[in-house]
């Protein structure tokens, strides 16, 4: 088994400005992407079925020319078709209003009938109405805001000084924004699972920041010693989590378990962002704070 050794960084070689440049530049790009998305699509991310409404059906592999069969079976073109590696089933999504429905019946019922008429066996199905989705959107956004504010207040109360608290909060903010921008670029939809992951990230990501702040501000030893000690622990922690989440993401993707895939991928990207933010952004803010008043 390979020895896992945490690399030590010689922070003395770099100025604070050099250290914050990379994370801040990436954060700026992320905010640009999210802002651009908002301007062009009216939402900060690609909203998934749970937020905009629509129908989804998971059917057994019909065998033969599946794509052909799926196309002829349904009266509307699915907005996405994906085959699940583990069991060969197909997941089809239809946007709301794609299928003409007779009065009083809903879209998914019509789709289910069409699927059955074509001889497909339905393994799972779900539908969300647009009004319900819009509602969910508001609540989810509110939830993320409340969680973030709550975390910020807690951090302030715990450290009781402004700069270290800002360092933690800034890096948590960036930890949430980078995966969000990444999802937009990779074409991953925002779903309830990803919202849960973003919230989880708020909790996960502050771990290593708090560890770093604690080690530098409250424990003995000079700045670089404390930093490398915190880094040894922190990087191990984050890598463990990344490994667990990466395995979950890949396995869940192969099995077609969407909620776990969504949670996993956001956490992987977010934790990677956290590594960078903690040991570049947060470290330099703390170094500035510790050395303030001292001429370099």
């Amino acid at each position, binding site marked *: *088994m*390979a*020895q*896992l050794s945490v690399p030590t960084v010689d922070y003395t070689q770099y100025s604070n400005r050099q250290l914050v440049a990379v994370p801040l530049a990436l954060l700026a790009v992320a905010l640009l992407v999210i802002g651009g998305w908002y301007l062009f699509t009216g939402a900060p991310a690609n909203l998934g079925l*749970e937020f905009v409404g629509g129908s989804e059906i*998971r059917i057994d592999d019909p065998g033969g020319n599946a794509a052909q069969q799926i196309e002829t079976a349904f009266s509307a073109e699915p907005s996405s078709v994906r085959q699940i590696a*583990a069991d060969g089933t197909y997941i089809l999504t239809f946007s709301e209003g794609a299928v003409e429905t007779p009065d009083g019946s*809903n879209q*998914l*019922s019509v789709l*289910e009938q069409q699927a059955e008429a074509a001889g497909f066996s*339905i*393994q*799972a199905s*779900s539908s969300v*109405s647009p009004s*319900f989705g819009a*509602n*969910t959107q508001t*609540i989810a956004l*509110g*939830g993320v805001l409340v*969680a*973030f504010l*709550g*975390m910020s207040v*807690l*951090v302030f109360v715990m450290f009781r000084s402004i700069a270290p608290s800002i360092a933690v909060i800034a890096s948590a903010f960036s930890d949430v924004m980078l995966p969000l921008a990444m999802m937009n670029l990779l074409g991953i939809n925002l779903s*309830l*699972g990803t*919202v*849960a992951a973003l*919230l*989880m990230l*708020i*909790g*996960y990501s*502050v*771990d290593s920041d*708090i*560890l770093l702040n604690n080690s530098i501000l*409250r424990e003995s030893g000079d700045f670089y010693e404390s930093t490398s000690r915190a880094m040894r*622990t922190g990087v*191990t*922690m984050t*890598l*463990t*989590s990344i*490994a667990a*989440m*990466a*395995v*979950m993401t890949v*396995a*869940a993707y192969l*099995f077609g*378990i969407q*909620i*776990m895939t969504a*949670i996993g991928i956001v956490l992987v990207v977010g934790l990677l962002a956290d590594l960078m933010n903690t040991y570049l952004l947060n470290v330099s803010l703390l170094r500035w704070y510790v050395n303030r008043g001292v001429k370099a």
Partner: protein
Amino acid sequence: MIEKLKSNWRLTLLAVILLISLFVVFSPTMAPQTNVGGENATTGDRLTNLQYGLDLAGGTRIRAPLIGMTAEAVDIGDESTTNVAAAVAAELPDSDTTDVTVRRGTINGPTVEVVNPDISESQFADALDATGYSYETIRDGLTQETRDEAINVIEGKVNQAGLSGASVQQITDGTGFFILVEVPGQDRSDVIDLIEQRGNVRIDIYHDNNGDGEYTTERAVLTQNDFASISNARQPDDRSPNPRVPVSIRQENGIAETFQSTVVETGVAQQGGSTCRYEENPQNTDPCLQLVVDGEVINSFGMNGDLANSMRTGDWARSPSFVLTTTSFEEAQEIAINLRAGDIPAEYAIDQGTTSFISPTQGENFRTDSLIIGILAILTVSGVVFARYREPQVALPMILTAFSEVLILLGFAAYLQYPLDLSVIASFIAVLGTGVDDLVIIADGVMAEGDVSSRRVFSSRFKKAFWVIGVAAATTIIAMSPLAVLSLGDLEGFAIFTILGVLVGVFVTRPAYGDILRNLLTER
């Protein structure tokens, strides 16, 4: 021995809690009294006492609002609520008393609720103005009493239809109320068919009383409350060529007698019986009894000679049984269910909610899949931890401790009978991740700067490490609590179990790991 247990009390506590958890999960004596899955036990398995949610067991889940408006603080004086309802219904287009509910003693009452989805707020306001009842506000949504009634009726329908293990409950997202219906092992369309209609059943009489060719409808000569008993739906047989529901009418308060005389007066029970030709020729038919569901005529039928005669002599009312004929057996079943369970007091608007269905085979696959994912996650975490520490005496307890957190969570789930869903499994993996993180903080914190031979040094370092863990745990709990409170569907379970896991970690397992490390590293 006792001394040792005492000084390692955290470890002892963990061992006790672990044993309890294992007992709750596996012991048959802790098995739920009434299996939620019913006789076919689809939601549990034999090996453990864990309950599986719809994701892992298969079934249908519907989450949707009830449609209606409520006028609050309506000044109805001493008038009877029935009269008020009738007066308001008369002013509303295409509405009858089943569309209006008047209640006293409700919050901001008396309240008047309108559940006809085609009525707009201004039409409702106009109707109230026309009837002269002043009111304070009209709001969207219904009263708690009506929602409770709806839940009871939906439960009744699902039970009457023989769908075992179903649950019906109210949830709120802070902006409004939804009714959540979960039926294990059942197809989506079956459940929707059962509850998408309000299921108000009544009997009308269609007749031309004065013989001038103008037919009128006597509405609601029988409604749900007038029936004393409702038999099971019958297939056509040699006694009758039609599918049907045998029923009997209440005798108290002269209900049966009133019905009897109405039937005789309108001519349904004429000499020799009546033959209904409503379907073919509505302008030239004998008087008909009509079976009406949610305002729609389902079937029209006449009366045979024998029954008509016993009505005419007045004998019938002494043993008032009667048969509702339908055009199909499914319809007869539906009528029987609707009559027994009653009508949902408002429309359950599935189109404005969400539905999801997982087939039992898919659920079973997800069960195996998530078990595999869980095992893979544990193996990965173990791999990383071993690679980092290289010393089994540090790494092995770490992995076992993190794993015991998951076991304790399973114990909680079994004890609470909380149905395991994919999101709950995801939270187990997340807890495993944070758990190991914190154990790494403890291990590194304690072992930093060489050997920890004295207990005093150990406990001071342990305390420092624990401060970080405490703050991190508090942030995770704060970040997750909105999800645990808001009902964002599947995420509630994820949030609840992540929070539980963090609490178990901070108060039980992580301190216990401290004990283990101390025993390994310090000398007496």
